[in-house]
Protein backbone atom coordinates (compact mmCIF):
# COMPACT_ATOMS: atom_id res chain seq x y z
CA UNK A 1 0.00 0.00 0.00
CA UNK A 2 2.79 2.52 0.46
CA UNK A 3 3.06 2.59 -3.30
CA UNK A 4 -0.54 3.62 -3.56
CA UNK A 5 -0.05 6.37 -1.01
CA UNK A 6 3.00 7.68 -2.84
CA UNK A 7 1.15 7.51 -6.14
CA UNK A 8 -1.78 9.48 -4.78
CA UNK A 9 0.59 11.95 -3.19
CA UNK A 10 2.81 12.59 -6.19
CA UNK A 11 -0.03 12.76 -8.69
CA UNK A 12 -3.06 13.70 -6.65
CA UNK A 13 -1.53 16.73 -5.03
CA UNK A 14 -0.44 18.43 -8.26
CA UNK A 15 -3.85 17.74 -9.77
CA UNK A 16 -5.67 19.44 -6.91
CA UNK A 17 -3.14 22.24 -6.82
CA UNK A 18 -3.67 22.83 -10.54
CA UNK A 19 -7.43 23.04 -10.06
CA UNK A 20 -6.96 25.44 -7.15
CA UNK A 21 -4.47 27.63 -9.03
CA UNK A 22 -6.74 27.88 -12.01
CA UNK A 23 -9.02 30.22 -10.06
CA UNK A 24 -6.28 32.74 -9.44
CA UNK A 25 -4.49 35.23 -11.60
CA UNK A 26 -0.81 35.55 -10.85
CA UNK A 27 2.63 35.18 -12.23
CA UNK A 28 5.43 33.27 -10.59
CA UNK A 29 7.69 36.28 -10.88
CA UNK A 30 5.22 38.34 -8.91
CA UNK A 31 3.65 36.01 -6.30
CA UNK A 32 2.48 38.83 -4.02
CA UNK A 33 0.09 40.00 -6.64
CA UNK A 34 -2.17 36.97 -6.41
CA UNK A 35 -5.85 37.55 -6.71
CA UNK A 36 -8.91 35.37 -6.95
CA UNK A 37 -10.52 35.67 -10.35
CA UNK A 38 -12.98 32.80 -10.25
CA UNK A 39 -13.59 31.37 -13.67
CA UNK A 40 -11.95 34.23 -15.46
CA UNK A 41 -8.91 32.18 -16.52
CA UNK A 42 -11.26 29.77 -18.25
CA UNK A 43 -13.13 32.62 -19.91
CA UNK A 44 -9.88 34.13 -21.10
CA UNK A 45 -8.81 30.77 -22.51
CA UNK A 46 -12.09 30.14 -24.27
CA UNK A 47 -12.12 33.53 -25.93
CA UNK A 48 -8.49 33.28 -27.02
CA UNK A 49 -7.90 32.38 -30.64
CA UNK A 50 -4.62 30.70 -29.71
CA UNK A 51 -6.50 28.27 -27.50
CA UNK A 52 -8.81 27.21 -30.30
CA UNK A 53 -5.97 26.82 -32.75
CA UNK A 54 -4.16 24.62 -30.22
CA UNK A 55 -7.34 22.63 -29.70
CA UNK A 56 -7.74 22.19 -33.45
CA UNK A 57 -4.11 21.10 -33.83
CA UNK A 58 -4.42 18.63 -30.95
CA UNK A 59 -7.61 17.05 -32.28
CA UNK A 60 -6.23 16.92 -35.81
CA UNK A 61 -2.96 15.31 -34.81
CA UNK A 62 -4.77 12.81 -32.61
CA UNK A 63 -7.25 11.76 -35.30
CA UNK A 64 -4.62 11.50 -38.05
CA UNK A 65 -2.02 9.61 -36.08
CA UNK A 66 -4.41 7.22 -34.38
CA UNK A 67 -6.18 6.26 -37.62
CA UNK A 68 -2.96 5.78 -39.58
CA UNK A 69 -1.37 3.89 -36.70
CA UNK A 70 -4.36 1.60 -36.42
CA UNK A 71 -4.26 0.67 -40.11
CA UNK A 72 -0.48 0.45 -40.30
CA UNK A 73 -0.23 -1.27 -36.94
CA UNK A 74 -2.78 -3.85 -38.01
CA UNK A 75 -0.92 -4.62 -41.23
CA UNK A 76 2.36 -4.95 -39.35
CA UNK A 77 0.72 -7.13 -36.71
CA UNK A 78 -0.74 -9.39 -39.42
CA UNK A 79 2.63 -9.73 -41.10
CA UNK A 80 4.37 -10.44 -37.80
CA UNK A 81 1.67 -12.97 -37.00
CA UNK A 82 1.94 -14.80 -40.31
CA UNK A 83 5.53 -14.82 -41.42
CA UNK A 84 7.91 -17.52 -40.36
CA UNK A 85 11.34 -16.84 -41.80
CA UNK A 86 12.54 -13.37 -40.70
CA UNK A 87 10.11 -13.31 -37.82
CA UNK A 88 12.55 -12.55 -35.04
CA UNK A 89 14.41 -9.95 -37.06
CA UNK A 90 11.17 -8.24 -37.95
CA UNK A 91 9.94 -8.25 -34.39
CA UNK A 92 13.16 -6.73 -33.09
CA UNK A 93 13.36 -4.15 -35.83
CA UNK A 94 9.77 -3.11 -35.30
CA UNK A 95 10.38 -2.67 -31.57
CA UNK A 96 13.32 -0.33 -32.03
CA UNK A 97 11.45 2.89 -32.94
CA UNK A 98 9.31 2.44 -29.86
CA UNK A 99 12.36 2.29 -27.63
CA UNK A 100 13.95 5.41 -29.10
CA UNK A 101 13.60 8.66 -27.19
CA UNK A 102 10.90 10.81 -28.77
CA UNK A 103 13.26 13.76 -28.88
CA UNK A 104 15.71 11.68 -30.90
CA UNK A 105 13.13 10.49 -33.40
CA UNK A 106 11.83 14.05 -33.60
CA UNK A 107 15.26 15.38 -34.52
CA UNK A 108 15.81 12.56 -37.00
CA UNK A 109 12.63 13.38 -38.89
CA UNK A 110 13.20 17.12 -38.56
CA UNK A 111 16.59 16.82 -40.23
CA UNK A 112 15.25 14.43 -42.86
CA UNK A 113 12.75 17.03 -44.03
CA UNK A 114 14.93 20.07 -43.59
CA UNK A 115 15.78 22.04 -46.70
CA UNK A 116 19.40 21.67 -47.69
CA UNK A 117 20.55 19.05 -45.19
CA UNK A 118 17.65 16.60 -45.45
CA UNK A 119 17.32 13.70 -47.85
CA UNK A 120 13.56 13.80 -48.37
CA UNK A 121 13.60 16.73 -50.78
CA UNK A 122 16.39 15.02 -52.72
CA UNK A 123 14.47 11.79 -52.99
CA UNK A 124 11.33 13.58 -54.09
CA UNK A 125 13.27 15.20 -56.89
CA UNK A 126 14.08 11.79 -58.30
CA UNK A 127 10.47 11.45 -59.27
CA UNK A 128 9.84 12.66 -62.80
CA UNK A 129 8.51 16.15 -63.22
CA UNK A 130 9.17 17.31 -59.69
CA UNK A 131 11.86 19.86 -59.12
CA UNK A 132 11.21 21.53 -55.86
CA UNK A 133 13.06 22.26 -52.70
CA UNK A 134 10.01 22.26 -50.57
CA UNK A 135 10.03 24.11 -47.26
CA UNK A 136 8.24 21.54 -45.13
CA UNK A 137 8.24 23.67 -42.00
CA UNK A 138 6.97 26.76 -43.77
CA UNK A 139 3.29 26.13 -43.34
CA UNK A 140 0.71 24.52 -41.10
CA UNK A 141 -0.27 21.48 -43.15
CA UNK A 142 3.20 20.35 -44.16
CA UNK A 143 4.45 20.85 -40.59
CA UNK A 144 1.50 18.85 -39.37
CA UNK A 145 2.40 16.14 -41.88
CA UNK A 146 5.99 15.80 -40.66
CA UNK A 147 5.00 15.96 -36.98
CA UNK A 148 2.39 13.25 -37.51
CA UNK A 149 4.85 11.13 -39.49
CA UNK A 150 7.37 11.21 -36.66
CA UNK A 151 4.71 10.39 -34.10
CA UNK A 152 3.40 7.55 -36.26
CA UNK A 153 6.85 6.09 -36.85
CA UNK A 154 7.58 6.09 -33.15
CA UNK A 155 4.34 4.68 -31.75
CA UNK A 156 3.00 2.32 -34.42
CA UNK A 157 5.05 -0.52 -32.86
CA UNK A 158 3.05 -0.13 -29.66
CA UNK A 159 -0.16 -0.44 -31.65
CA UNK A 160 1.15 -3.49 -33.53
CA UNK A 161 2.16 -5.24 -30.33
CA UNK A 162 -1.26 -4.81 -28.76
CA UNK A 163 -2.94 -5.95 -31.96
CA UNK A 164 -0.55 -8.89 -32.25
CA UNK A 165 -1.62 -9.96 -28.78
CA UNK A 166 -5.20 -9.67 -30.00
CA UNK A 167 -4.45 -11.73 -33.10
CA UNK A 168 -3.00 -14.46 -30.95
CA UNK A 169 -6.39 -14.88 -29.32
CA UNK A 170 -8.24 -15.40 -32.58
CA UNK A 171 -9.51 -18.93 -32.84
CA UNK A 172 -7.59 -20.35 -35.79
CA UNK A 173 -10.01 -23.26 -36.20
CA UNK A 174 -12.77 -20.78 -36.97
CA UNK A 175 -10.53 -19.20 -39.52
CA UNK A 176 -9.88 -22.56 -41.14
CA UNK A 177 -13.55 -23.42 -41.10
CA UNK A 178 -14.43 -20.19 -42.84
CA UNK A 179 -11.78 -20.84 -45.48
CA UNK A 180 -13.08 -24.33 -46.09
CA UNK A 181 -16.54 -22.83 -46.56
CA UNK A 182 -15.05 -20.81 -49.39
CA UNK A 183 -14.81 -17.45 -47.68
CA UNK A 184 -12.40 -15.02 -49.30
CA UNK A 185 -9.46 -13.64 -47.40
CA UNK A 186 -11.25 -10.33 -46.90
CA UNK A 187 -14.39 -12.07 -45.65
CA UNK A 188 -12.38 -14.03 -43.11
CA UNK A 189 -10.79 -10.82 -41.96
CA UNK A 190 -14.05 -8.95 -41.50
CA UNK A 191 -16.26 -11.76 -40.25
CA UNK A 192 -13.89 -13.81 -38.12
CA UNK A 193 -10.67 -12.02 -37.25
CA UNK A 194 -11.86 -8.49 -36.52
CA UNK A 195 -14.79 -9.38 -34.25
CA UNK A 196 -12.66 -11.55 -32.01
CA UNK A 197 -10.08 -8.78 -31.76
CA UNK A 198 -12.52 -6.12 -30.75
CA UNK A 199 -11.26 -5.84 -27.17
CA UNK A 200 -7.62 -5.55 -28.22
CA UNK A 201 -8.44 -2.95 -30.86
CA UNK A 202 -10.45 -0.86 -28.41
CA UNK A 203 -7.79 -0.93 -25.72
CA UNK A 204 -5.11 -0.03 -28.26
CA UNK A 205 -7.25 2.81 -29.62
CA UNK A 206 -7.98 4.15 -26.15
CA UNK A 207 -4.34 4.09 -25.10
CA UNK A 208 -3.11 5.76 -28.24
CA UNK A 209 -5.88 8.38 -28.40
CA UNK A 210 -5.20 9.53 -24.86
CA UNK A 211 -1.49 9.49 -25.53
CA UNK A 212 -1.68 11.39 -28.82
CA UNK A 213 -3.93 13.99 -27.22
CA UNK A 214 -1.04 14.97 -24.97
CA UNK A 215 1.44 15.36 -27.84
CA UNK A 216 4.31 17.61 -26.90
CA UNK A 217 7.87 16.39 -27.60
CA UNK A 218 7.64 16.16 -31.37
CA UNK A 219 6.07 19.59 -31.73
CA UNK A 220 8.55 21.19 -29.36
CA UNK A 221 11.48 19.78 -31.33
CA UNK A 222 10.19 20.30 -34.84
CA UNK A 223 8.33 23.58 -34.99
CA UNK A 224 8.32 24.86 -31.42
CA UNK A 225 4.69 25.66 -32.09
CA UNK A 226 5.32 27.87 -35.11
CA UNK A 227 2.68 28.15 -37.85
CA UNK A 228 -0.09 27.45 -35.35
CA UNK A 229 1.20 23.95 -34.65
CA UNK A 230 1.02 24.42 -30.87
CA UNK A 231 -0.89 21.63 -29.21
CA UNK A 232 -2.72 22.06 -25.91
CA UNK A 233 0.28 20.66 -24.05
CA UNK A 234 2.58 23.08 -25.88
CA UNK A 235 0.32 25.97 -24.95
CA UNK A 236 0.35 24.99 -21.28
CA UNK A 237 4.13 24.83 -21.36
CA UNK A 238 4.36 28.27 -22.98
CA UNK A 239 1.97 29.84 -20.44
CA UNK A 240 3.55 28.22 -17.41
CA UNK A 241 7.26 27.93 -18.02
CA UNK A 242 7.94 30.65 -20.57
CA UNK A 243 5.51 33.28 -19.36
CA UNK A 244 5.06 32.02 -15.76
CA UNK A 245 1.32 32.69 -15.98
CA UNK A 246 0.53 30.00 -13.43
CA UNK A 247 -3.19 30.74 -13.25
CA UNK A 248 -3.78 30.58 -16.99
CA UNK A 249 -1.54 27.54 -17.39
CA UNK A 250 -3.43 25.74 -14.63
CA UNK A 251 -6.79 26.52 -16.21
CA UNK A 252 -5.51 25.06 -19.49
CA UNK A 253 -4.21 22.01 -17.63
CA UNK A 254 -7.62 21.42 -16.11
CA UNK A 255 -9.24 21.79 -19.53
CA UNK A 256 -6.78 19.28 -21.02
CA UNK A 257 -7.40 16.86 -18.18
CA UNK A 258 -11.16 17.14 -18.62
CA UNK A 259 -10.77 16.47 -22.35
CA UNK A 260 -8.77 13.34 -21.58
CA UNK A 261 -11.39 12.21 -19.06
CA UNK A 262 -14.17 12.76 -21.59
CA UNK A 263 -12.33 10.78 -24.26
CA UNK A 264 -11.75 7.94 -21.81
CA UNK A 265 -15.38 8.00 -20.69
CA UNK A 266 -16.65 7.97 -24.27
CA UNK A 267 -14.48 4.96 -25.08
CA UNK A 268 -15.49 3.07 -21.99
CA UNK A 269 -19.21 3.77 -22.48
CA UNK A 270 -19.53 3.58 -26.24
CA UNK A 271 -17.32 0.57 -26.80
CA UNK A 272 -17.88 -1.13 -23.48
CA UNK A 273 -14.19 -1.43 -22.76
CA UNK A 274 -13.92 -2.87 -19.30
CA UNK A 275 -10.63 -1.55 -18.06
CA UNK A 276 -10.41 -3.88 -15.13
CA UNK A 277 -11.44 -6.88 -17.17
CA UNK A 278 -8.16 -6.76 -19.03
CA UNK A 279 -6.74 -8.07 -15.80
CA UNK A 280 -8.23 -11.52 -15.65
Amino acid sequence: MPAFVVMVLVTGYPILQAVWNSFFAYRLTDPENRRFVGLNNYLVSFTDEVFWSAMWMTVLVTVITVIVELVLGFIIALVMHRIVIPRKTLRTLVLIPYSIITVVSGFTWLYAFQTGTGFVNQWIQWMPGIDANYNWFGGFWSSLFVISLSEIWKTTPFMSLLLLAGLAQVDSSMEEAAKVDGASWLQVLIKVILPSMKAAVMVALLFRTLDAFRIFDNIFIMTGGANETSSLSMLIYRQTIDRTEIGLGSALSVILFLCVLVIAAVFVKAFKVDLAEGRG
Partner: protein
Amino acid sequence: MKQSTKGTGIWSVLAVPIMLWTAVPLLWMLSLSLKSADDLANKDASVLGNFWPKDPTFENYQLIFSGGASELFMPALRNSLIVCLLATLISVVLAMFCAYAISRLEFKGKKMILVTALAVSFFPVVAMVTPLFEIWSKTGLFDTIPGLVIPYLALTLPLSIWTMSAFFQQIPWEMEQAAQVDGATSWQAFRKVIVPLAAPGVFTTAIITFFIAWNDFVFAISLTSDQARTVPAALAFFTGASQFEQPTGAIMAASVIVTIPVVILVLLFQRRIVAGLTSGAVKG
Protein backbone atom coordinates in the same frame (compact mmCIF):
# COMPACT_ATOMS: atom_id res chain seq x y z
CA MET B 1 0.15 -27.46 -46.36
CA LYS B 2 0.71 -26.11 -49.81
CA GLN B 3 -1.51 -23.16 -49.12
CA SER B 4 0.29 -22.16 -45.94
CA THR B 5 3.68 -22.05 -47.66
CA LYS B 6 2.23 -19.85 -50.36
CA GLY B 7 0.85 -17.56 -47.66
CA THR B 8 4.22 -17.36 -45.99
CA GLY B 9 5.81 -16.12 -49.19
CA ILE B 10 3.37 -13.25 -49.56
CA TRP B 11 3.74 -12.24 -45.94
CA SER B 12 7.51 -12.29 -46.17
CA VAL B 13 7.39 -9.98 -49.18
CA LEU B 14 5.22 -7.61 -47.16
CA ALA B 15 7.83 -7.64 -44.42
CA VAL B 16 10.30 -5.85 -46.70
CA PRO B 17 8.55 -2.45 -46.81
CA ILE B 18 7.93 -2.67 -43.07
CA MET B 19 11.61 -3.24 -42.43
CA LEU B 20 12.54 -0.36 -44.74
CA TRP B 21 10.07 1.93 -43.05
CA THR B 22 11.67 1.13 -39.74
CA ALA B 23 15.27 1.07 -40.85
CA VAL B 24 15.56 4.13 -43.11
CA PRO B 25 15.20 6.72 -40.30
CA LEU B 26 17.60 4.68 -38.15
CA LEU B 27 20.20 4.65 -40.91
CA TRP B 28 19.60 8.34 -41.48
CA MET B 29 20.33 9.00 -37.84
CA LEU B 30 23.60 7.08 -38.12
CA SER B 31 24.43 8.78 -41.41
CA LEU B 32 24.01 12.28 -39.96
CA SER B 33 26.21 11.43 -37.01
CA LEU B 34 28.98 10.45 -39.45
CA LYS B 35 28.79 13.62 -41.51
CA SER B 36 31.21 16.43 -40.86
CA ALA B 37 29.84 19.95 -40.46
CA ASP B 38 31.05 20.87 -43.95
CA ASP B 39 29.64 17.78 -45.62
CA LEU B 40 26.28 18.34 -43.99
CA ALA B 41 25.38 21.30 -46.15
CA ASN B 42 27.15 19.98 -49.23
CA LYS B 43 25.03 17.60 -51.29
CA ASP B 44 28.00 16.49 -53.36
CA ALA B 45 29.68 15.05 -50.28
CA SER B 46 26.91 12.50 -49.93
CA VAL B 47 25.61 9.60 -51.96
CA LEU B 48 22.09 8.26 -52.49
CA GLY B 49 20.55 11.72 -52.64
CA ASN B 50 22.13 13.32 -49.62
CA PHE B 51 21.49 10.17 -47.61
CA TRP B 52 24.87 8.63 -46.85
CA PRO B 53 28.20 10.47 -46.38
CA LYS B 54 30.99 9.74 -48.89
CA ASP B 55 33.63 10.17 -46.20
CA PRO B 56 32.22 9.07 -42.87
CA THR B 57 33.96 10.76 -39.98
CA PHE B 58 33.88 10.26 -36.25
CA GLU B 59 34.47 13.90 -35.43
CA ASN B 60 30.96 14.34 -34.03
CA TYR B 61 31.55 11.54 -31.58
CA GLN B 62 34.83 13.12 -30.56
CA LEU B 63 32.99 16.38 -30.10
CA ILE B 64 30.49 14.95 -27.63
CA PHE B 65 32.92 12.76 -25.70
CA SER B 66 35.96 14.95 -25.37
CA GLY B 67 35.40 18.02 -27.52
CA GLY B 68 33.38 21.18 -27.13
CA ALA B 69 30.03 19.47 -26.65
CA SER B 70 31.23 17.10 -23.93
CA GLU B 71 30.52 19.62 -21.17
CA LEU B 72 26.92 19.53 -22.24
CA PHE B 73 26.50 15.90 -23.07
CA MET B 74 28.48 14.01 -20.43
CA PRO B 75 26.79 15.56 -17.35
CA ALA B 76 23.43 15.06 -19.03
CA LEU B 77 24.21 11.41 -19.65
CA ARG B 78 25.26 10.99 -16.03
CA ASN B 79 22.11 12.77 -14.79
CA SER B 80 19.92 10.65 -17.01
CA LEU B 81 21.47 7.43 -15.73
CA ILE B 82 21.26 8.44 -12.06
CA VAL B 83 17.72 9.79 -12.24
CA CYS B 84 16.35 6.92 -14.29
CA LEU B 85 18.00 4.19 -12.22
CA LEU B 86 16.84 5.78 -8.96
CA ALA B 87 13.31 6.26 -10.24
CA THR B 88 13.22 2.69 -11.56
CA LEU B 89 14.50 1.23 -8.31
CA ILE B 90 12.08 3.13 -6.06
CA SER B 91 9.17 2.65 -8.39
CA VAL B 92 9.71 -1.11 -8.74
CA VAL B 93 10.13 -1.67 -5.00
CA LEU B 94 7.00 0.32 -4.14
CA ALA B 95 5.01 -1.25 -6.95
CA MET B 96 6.12 -4.70 -5.82
CA PHE B 97 4.55 -4.22 -2.38
CA CYS B 98 1.40 -2.89 -3.95
CA ALA B 99 1.14 -5.64 -6.56
CA TYR B 100 1.86 -8.27 -3.93
CA ALA B 101 -0.95 -6.93 -1.77
CA ILE B 102 -3.33 -6.75 -4.70
CA SER B 103 -2.76 -10.26 -5.91
CA ARG B 104 -2.22 -11.91 -2.55
CA LEU B 105 -4.69 -10.36 -0.18
CA GLU B 106 -8.41 -10.02 -0.33
CA PHE B 107 -9.59 -6.54 0.51
CA LYS B 108 -12.09 -3.96 -0.52
CA GLY B 109 -11.17 -1.44 -3.17
CA LYS B 110 -8.74 -3.73 -4.99
CA LYS B 111 -10.27 -3.06 -8.35
CA MET B 112 -10.46 0.62 -7.50
CA ILE B 113 -6.72 0.82 -6.96
CA LEU B 114 -6.05 -0.69 -10.37
CA VAL B 115 -8.53 1.55 -12.12
CA THR B 116 -7.16 4.59 -10.28
CA ALA B 117 -3.65 3.60 -11.30
CA LEU B 118 -4.74 3.43 -14.91
CA ALA B 119 -6.68 6.70 -14.76
CA VAL B 120 -3.73 8.46 -13.17
CA SER B 121 -1.40 7.21 -15.88
CA PHE B 122 -3.58 9.01 -18.41
CA PHE B 123 -3.21 12.31 -16.62
CA PRO B 124 -1.55 14.81 -18.94
CA VAL B 125 2.04 15.16 -17.82
CA VAL B 126 2.19 18.80 -18.79
CA ALA B 127 -0.68 19.54 -16.44
CA MET B 128 1.44 18.36 -13.52
CA VAL B 129 4.29 20.63 -14.51
CA THR B 130 2.52 23.83 -13.49
CA PRO B 131 2.09 23.07 -9.77
CA LEU B 132 5.36 21.14 -9.53
CA PHE B 133 7.27 23.99 -11.11
CA GLU B 134 5.82 26.34 -8.55
CA ILE B 135 6.53 24.13 -5.52
CA TRP B 136 10.00 23.19 -6.75
CA SER B 137 10.95 26.83 -7.21
CA LYS B 138 9.91 27.56 -3.64
CA THR B 139 11.47 24.51 -1.99
CA GLY B 140 14.75 24.44 -3.85
CA LEU B 141 14.01 21.13 -5.53
CA PHE B 142 14.14 22.85 -8.91
CA ASP B 143 17.06 21.61 -11.01
CA THR B 144 18.04 18.82 -8.59
CA ILE B 145 18.15 15.04 -8.96
CA PRO B 146 15.36 14.37 -6.40
CA GLY B 147 13.37 17.10 -8.12
CA LEU B 148 13.24 14.85 -11.17
CA VAL B 149 13.03 11.48 -9.44
CA ILE B 150 9.80 12.42 -7.65
CA PRO B 151 7.87 13.37 -10.80
CA TYR B 152 9.25 10.27 -12.52
CA LEU B 153 7.68 8.20 -9.78
CA ALA B 154 4.38 9.84 -10.63
CA LEU B 155 5.00 8.89 -14.22
CA THR B 156 6.05 5.29 -13.68
CA LEU B 157 4.30 4.06 -10.54
CA PRO B 158 0.82 3.64 -12.03
CA LEU B 159 2.16 1.60 -14.92
CA SER B 160 4.51 -0.38 -12.68
CA ILE B 161 1.67 -1.32 -10.35
CA TRP B 162 -0.52 -2.21 -13.30
CA THR B 163 2.07 -4.32 -15.11
CA MET B 164 3.41 -6.03 -12.06
CA SER B 165 0.06 -7.03 -10.64
CA ALA B 166 -0.70 -8.59 -14.03
CA PHE B 167 2.36 -10.78 -13.56
CA PHE B 168 1.77 -11.45 -9.89
CA GLN B 169 -1.77 -12.60 -10.49
CA GLN B 170 -0.48 -15.47 -12.57
CA ILE B 171 1.58 -16.77 -9.67
CA PRO B 172 0.00 -19.77 -7.98
CA TRP B 173 0.19 -18.61 -4.38
CA GLU B 174 -0.95 -22.03 -3.12
CA MET B 175 2.54 -23.28 -3.87
CA GLU B 176 3.85 -21.11 -1.06
CA GLN B 177 1.50 -22.79 1.38
CA ALA B 178 2.35 -26.17 -0.02
CA ALA B 179 6.02 -25.51 0.64
CA GLN B 180 5.21 -24.47 4.18
CA VAL B 181 3.26 -27.62 4.72
CA ASP B 182 6.35 -29.50 3.57
CA GLY B 183 8.27 -27.89 6.42
CA ALA B 184 9.74 -24.77 4.91
CA THR B 185 9.62 -21.57 6.95
CA SER B 186 7.49 -18.85 5.46
CA TRP B 187 10.60 -16.87 4.52
CA GLN B 188 12.12 -19.93 2.84
CA ALA B 189 8.86 -20.56 1.04
CA PHE B 190 8.77 -16.98 -0.14
CA ARG B 191 12.39 -16.98 -1.24
CA LYS B 192 12.47 -20.37 -2.90
CA VAL B 193 9.04 -20.42 -4.50
CA ILE B 194 7.70 -16.93 -4.97
CA VAL B 195 10.84 -14.95 -5.78
CA PRO B 196 11.85 -17.06 -8.81
CA LEU B 197 8.30 -16.93 -10.11
CA ALA B 198 7.98 -13.20 -9.61
CA ALA B 199 11.42 -12.27 -10.90
CA PRO B 200 10.53 -12.06 -14.61
CA GLY B 201 7.62 -9.75 -13.86
CA VAL B 202 9.73 -7.51 -11.67
CA PHE B 203 12.45 -7.44 -14.27
CA THR B 204 10.09 -6.59 -17.12
CA THR B 205 8.48 -3.84 -15.09
CA ALA B 206 11.91 -2.42 -14.33
CA ILE B 207 12.83 -2.25 -18.02
CA ILE B 208 9.56 -0.61 -19.01
CA THR B 209 9.84 1.84 -16.11
CA PHE B 210 13.37 2.72 -17.13
CA PHE B 211 12.27 3.35 -20.72
CA ILE B 212 9.53 5.71 -19.60
CA ALA B 213 11.88 7.73 -17.41
CA TRP B 214 14.60 7.68 -20.08
CA ASN B 215 12.14 9.02 -22.64
CA ASP B 216 10.66 11.80 -20.53
CA PHE B 217 11.01 15.25 -21.98
CA VAL B 218 8.35 17.42 -20.39
CA PHE B 219 9.60 17.23 -16.81
CA ALA B 220 13.21 17.34 -17.93
CA ILE B 221 12.89 20.64 -19.75
CA SER B 222 10.59 22.36 -17.28
CA LEU B 223 12.01 21.29 -13.93
CA THR B 224 15.73 21.59 -14.66
CA SER B 225 18.02 24.28 -15.97
CA ASP B 226 21.64 23.17 -16.08
CA GLN B 227 22.52 21.12 -13.00
CA ALA B 228 20.16 18.19 -13.34
CA ARG B 229 19.38 18.36 -17.04
CA THR B 230 18.93 14.93 -18.62
CA VAL B 231 19.80 13.77 -22.11
CA PRO B 232 16.50 14.52 -23.91
CA ALA B 233 16.41 18.05 -22.53
CA ALA B 234 20.11 18.60 -23.18
CA LEU B 235 19.62 17.52 -26.79
CA ALA B 236 16.79 19.98 -27.23
CA PHE B 237 18.90 22.84 -25.93
CA PHE B 238 22.10 21.87 -27.73
CA THR B 239 23.59 24.82 -29.54
CA GLY B 240 26.44 24.80 -31.98
CA ALA B 241 29.96 26.04 -31.43
CA SER B 242 28.92 29.30 -33.01
CA GLN B 243 25.44 30.59 -33.53
CA PHE B 244 25.74 30.04 -37.27
CA GLU B 245 26.77 26.44 -36.99
CA GLN B 246 23.97 23.94 -36.69
CA PRO B 247 24.87 21.23 -34.14
CA THR B 248 23.07 18.62 -36.27
CA GLY B 249 25.96 16.16 -36.38
CA ALA B 250 26.67 16.39 -32.65
CA ILE B 251 22.98 15.98 -31.77
CA MET B 252 22.75 12.89 -33.92
CA ALA B 253 25.98 11.43 -32.54
CA ALA B 254 24.59 11.89 -29.03
CA SER B 255 21.32 10.37 -30.21
CA VAL B 256 23.09 7.30 -31.53
CA ILE B 257 24.97 6.95 -28.23
CA VAL B 258 21.81 7.02 -26.12
CA THR B 259 19.93 4.79 -28.54
CA ILE B 260 22.46 1.95 -28.71
CA PRO B 261 22.13 0.72 -25.08
CA VAL B 262 18.36 0.85 -25.36
CA VAL B 263 18.42 -1.11 -28.59
CA ILE B 264 20.68 -3.72 -27.00
CA LEU B 265 18.24 -4.03 -24.10
CA VAL B 266 15.41 -4.48 -26.56
CA LEU B 267 17.35 -7.10 -28.50
CA LEU B 268 18.15 -9.05 -25.36
CA PHE B 269 14.77 -8.89 -23.72
CA GLN B 270 12.34 -8.40 -26.57
CA ARG B 271 10.22 -11.38 -25.61
CA ARG B 272 9.75 -10.14 -22.05
CA ILE B 273 9.15 -6.57 -23.09
CA VAL B 274 6.45 -7.66 -25.49
CA ALA B 275 4.87 -9.81 -22.80
CA GLY B 276 5.02 -6.93 -20.33
CA LEU B 277 3.60 -4.32 -22.66
CA THR B 278 0.77 -6.48 -23.85
CA SER B 279 -0.13 -7.91 -20.47
CA GLY B 280 -0.46 -4.36 -19.28
CA ALA B 281 -3.27 -3.80 -21.69
CA VAL B 282 -4.74 -6.94 -23.17
CA LYS B 283 -5.62 -10.13 -21.47
CA GLY B 284 -3.11 -12.80 -22.34
